[in-house]
């Protein structure tokens, strides 16, 4: 088990800056996630830690030791690849035993370990299977068992759930988390899926265009985003550039909202579930009259798109029995937004 320290990491490919001024400390036993859109630099960062990409500058420490000059094979960093990279010409057993044979362990010890880890990922009895006979979920488990068997200081997971179907993804991520938590391995998980990141992580680093924009717990990232990109990337949000006059924020010429005292920023953000929706006129500040333009049900939420003047508001309501009965497309509705749910953020 080890902590990971990344100090001033820079990496560019030609003119493209893949990682710029990355400074992150990952604690021992922590489940840490690099979250961001495609091409944001998160996988490059992971490959720098694994030793497959050399940074242009900066320091990488694992267990308080600099690993900059240690080749990939000596870093004791387990990597689960996006496409699993299981050796197709070996059986499940041989794949899991691979690192143990390299260490020249005794056959009995290898056997015990392989069986332990296969049991851990619920694949006992699959030892003799060849890789092409396995389903996507089973391949994913073998890849995890193979990396765990080497007992790495740090486990790196490069979007390992992205090739699975939605339902399997949810069950696999719970299973993966419980195994990793039980073993208390420091884990760095790369994903572009914010739901996955929020569900699994102790802490998250949000990346965009090679920069780390915010580091925090899932609760901090979701509820207290430090800038407009993080707010928009993590979860649904209403986001508008605003002109501020005291506590008045002008979204358009005709839509103005009252914001908390002392707020400042270029963008106004409101989560859809923080907007109340009424069918009758309401009294007070921050009441907007609009028309339902679109509606769909996601299961847990009713989601509405409401046209207010020439701006579009996304509004969510929890789906409870009878909660959507009274609202139809083209209905006139009144939105109530209390100032405390409004956030003003820099770009």
């Amino acid at each position, binding site marked *: 088990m080890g902590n990971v320290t990344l100090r001033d990491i820079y990496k560019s490919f030609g003119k493209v800056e893949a990682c710029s001024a990355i400074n992150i400390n990952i604690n021992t036993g922590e489940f840490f996630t690099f979250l961001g859109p495609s091409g944001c630099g998160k996988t490059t960062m992971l490959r720098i830690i*694994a*030793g*497959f990409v050399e940074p242009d500058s900066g320091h990488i420490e694992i267990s308080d030791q600099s690993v900059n000059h240690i*080749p*990939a*094979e*000596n*870093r*004791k*960093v*387990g*990597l689960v*690849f996006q*496409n*699993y*990279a*299981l*050796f*197709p*010409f070996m059986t499940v057993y041989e794949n899991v035993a*691979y*690192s143990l044979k*390299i*260490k020249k362990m005794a056959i009995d010890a290898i056997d015990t370990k392989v069986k332990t880890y296969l049991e851990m990922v619920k694949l006992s009895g699959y030892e003799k299977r060849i*890789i*092409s006979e396995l389903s996507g979920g089973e*391949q994913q488990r073998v890849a995890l068992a*193979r*990396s765990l068997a*080497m007992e790495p200081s740090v486990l790196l997971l490069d979007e390992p759930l992205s090739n699975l179907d939605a339902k399997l993804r949810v069950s696999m991520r719970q299973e993966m988390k419980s195994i990793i938590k039980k073993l208390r391995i420091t884990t760095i998980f790369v994903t572009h899926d914010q739901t996955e990141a929020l569900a699994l992580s102790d802490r998250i680093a949000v990346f965009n265009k090679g920069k780390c924009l915010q580091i925090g717990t899932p609760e901090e990232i979701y509820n207290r985003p430090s800038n407009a990109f993080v707010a928009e990337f993590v979860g649904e949000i209403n986001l508008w550039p605003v002109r501020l006059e005291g506590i008045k924020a002008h979204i358009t010429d005709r839509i103005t909202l009252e914001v908390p005292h002392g707020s400042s920023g270029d963008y106004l953000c409101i989560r859809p579930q923080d907007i109340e929706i009424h069918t009758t006129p309401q009294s007070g500040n921050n009441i907007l009259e609009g028309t339902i333009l679109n509606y769909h049900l996601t299961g847990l939420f009713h989601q509405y798109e409401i046209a207010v003047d020439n701006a579009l508001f996304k509004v969510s309501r929890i789906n409870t029995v009878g909660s959507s009965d009274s609202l139809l497309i083209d209905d006139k509705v009144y939105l109530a937004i209390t100032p405390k749910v409004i956030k003003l953020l820099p770009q």
Partner: protein
Amino acid sequence: MKKLKSIAFIGILLWCLIGTILFPAFRTLQVSMTAEQRLSLIHYTDFLKNTINLETLFHSVTLGILTVLFCGIVGTSLAFLVHYYEMPYQKFFDKILLLPIMLPGLIIVFAFVQLYGESGIITQSIKILLNLNEIPFRFKGLAGILFVHTYTQYVYFYLNVSIGIRHLDQSVIEASRNMGASKWVVFKTILLPFLKPALIASSIVTFMSGIGSFSAPSIIGGSYRVMTVQILMSKANNYMSVAAMQVVLLSIVSLSFLWVLKQYEKRIQYQSSVRGALFKPLKLKKASHKWLQYIILCVLCLLILLPVVMILVGSFISPGSWMVEIFPSKFSWDNYVKIFMKSRAFAPFKNSIIMALIASLMTLLIGLPSSAIIEKSNYRSKGLIEFLVMLPWTMPSSAIAINTINAYNKASVFSFNQIWVGSYMLLPIAYFISALPIMVRTLNVAMNGLNDTYIEASRSLGAKKLWTFRHVIVPIISPGIIAGFLLVFIRSIGEYTMSAFLYTVSNKPISIAMVNSIFEYDIGLAMTYGALLVIVSTLLSSFVYWLVPQGGKTNA
């Protein structure tokens, strides 16, 4: 230091490639433009003034085009018959239909002569059965050559179109039918565009082998003269400058056609946007259609197997016994005993095996680093290396033979200041040049299967470079290496065209021994050489097919 090593390594590789491929071609061009030790275009002007010469050139082009046409029709129809429609014993028919690709062309020509020639078994049987005064057909000239070409080369179309059919996207076909397309419209608008890349790729291969064909035109061509045969005549009469000029002209013509087809191939490339649904072969509903499909395939399989059976049976014909009768009557093991007991008769078989082994090893030695550079490196010279290793593919065998003679009949830096013409090694070198593109293409496929993530996965699990090489890289690319090695071996062991140009007393190969035996009326011995080649080629080819499943292995 590391950089210096790479430069030295690439330098040696380029030196080998330039010395064996570019320098010989350049020398041929130089020789073709030399008369009385001066730069001159007289050979070209003389050639182009003569209508008989122009007719020969025209014959070669016609042969190339007709070969594509006939092979295209036969190969594509068969691919549809076997793979587009459901049928029993599909795998069995598929294997039989692939058989001709494994057999050296020369053997097929001889088997056909024994079957369909003037005194062939089939020709004479028809004559007797129908009580004819004349033989029903003459197996020679353009028709004869085309018959042999269709038999030996439809397989390229059959193979590529079959793979194309298997990769058809069922959902696209269903979408088209859903929108009201008839069967013909589906064929025209969906199937044909899907299969066009396969058809063009096959057209290129068959055109190149059609225009460069030598065995069939030289043995049964008769008055239908083509350039390859003319080149050998020029060389035999010691008009090397004329032979060189003919090689240059033939190369220009084949390169022009290749260029046109390649341009077309580039235009029709497509990529599916999403992963398609697996193609399901269609069911033939009417019993009469099913029977027709079955009967056609059975007859064709019989026709395919007939020459092979002819060779195998022919190898047991007692020496001197089958001279005037229509059907052979005396059989014995004498031919085999002669080959394996008499060193003079065994020598060609041994020579061919040794030379094919040398050629296979040489192609592997040059092909492996070339393929690694082409597929896995960012070296600046990678484009040049790819161009050089693929260049022989555009050269007819007779051109390669003339090029090697021109290059190595004088001492040069590429031949270590030696003269190689007349030596044992010249023929294996020519085999090597001709087979290098096949080796590199096979290795490239293997190298492609070597996904970089496997190497990274191995390293992240703690493996050092040597361990990764032994346990990950070798298992992935070894089927490719073995397949490439065997393909080159099969191609070289029965090679005839270059052998006819380059063999010497010290390295007379089996193909030349076969032709000589025929001219000495020792048909049994010729057939026995053929049978040995068929056995070796079929066994090794089956091993290659087993080793490298068609369509490639799926990884993870």
